[in-house]
């Protein structure tokens, strides 16, 4: 019963996050590279462009401060683009004013997980997922949200 409640709460929270993300995207100009577009193009070249609201601002700062060592890969960007993307991510982070704070659940203000999959909410939501699901060829890794959540 409790699990069901947690699950439905989580689904609602994620739907709200994704809904607001899509609404924000619809108002962006398609002709110039705004911060959101820079984030989607640069970060989204290698992996799904995670929603900024999935991690606190401190996490994003840590991640973008050392892109030359980004999970054992060099993902370095020029200084201007790095600053632009960091600014965008922190302004829309899980603990940013006006943001959806769902992913702060179970995190203290000083916590700065580097992976969405290390957040208490992510773990609660995926608690009952068969671990083998994450190693399917089309999924490969827990980091590949869209491996399961799309197509």
């Amino acid at each position, binding site marked *: 019963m409790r699990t069901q409640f947690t699950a439905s709460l989580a689904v609602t929270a994620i739907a709200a996050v994704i809904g607001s993300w899509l609404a924000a995207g619809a108002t962006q100009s398609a002709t110039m590279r705004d911060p959101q577009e820079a984030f989607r193009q640069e970060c989204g070249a290698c992996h799904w462009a995670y929603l900024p609201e999935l991690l606190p601002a401190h996490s994003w700062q840590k991640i973008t401060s050392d892109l030359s060592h980004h999970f054992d890969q*060099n993902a370095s960007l020029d200084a201007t683009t790095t600053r632009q993307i960091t600014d965008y991510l922190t302004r829309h982070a899980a603990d940013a004013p006006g943001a959806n704070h769902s992913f702060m659940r179970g995190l203290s203000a000083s916590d700065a997980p580097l992976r969405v999959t290390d957040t208490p909410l992510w773990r609660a939501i995926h608690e009952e997922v068969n671990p083998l699901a994450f190693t399917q060829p089309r999924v490969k890794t827990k980091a590949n949200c869209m491996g399961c959540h799309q197509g």
Partner: protein
Amino acid sequence: MKLIIRIAAAACLAASLALVAQAAVGPGQQAVLDSIAKLAKQTDPNFSGFSAERGNAFFLVHHTTGNAETPSCSTCHTINPRNEGQTTVGKAIAPMAVSRTPDRFTDLTKVEKWFRRNCDTVLGRQCTPQEKGDFITFMSGL
């Protein structure tokens, strides 16, 4: 006399083959190759041009000096550059072959960004201008 004609014919054939080989590289790729060739000449006095064959070998070789998860270019790009690749986190990569992705290697800043990142990750060092030019020459002819 006959010998002279034969030599002339062979020279014509060689020249036209060279033209065909050059024509395979589009103007966008050629501009990027020219910039990299300039660097190659500066860093290597013995530089004598780029080779698609060397680029092919470089693409396939497995290195032991970088990230063990990605020992080769072909780890993500597959052994056939005409195919779509896949990043280590499951995102599709458009084919590297210029015939399949025509705007590949036409933007020097983008080219240098990806060599900087991927050479460090795969080889644990930066690639030389020679290696970069060979790589692009190989992909441009595919």
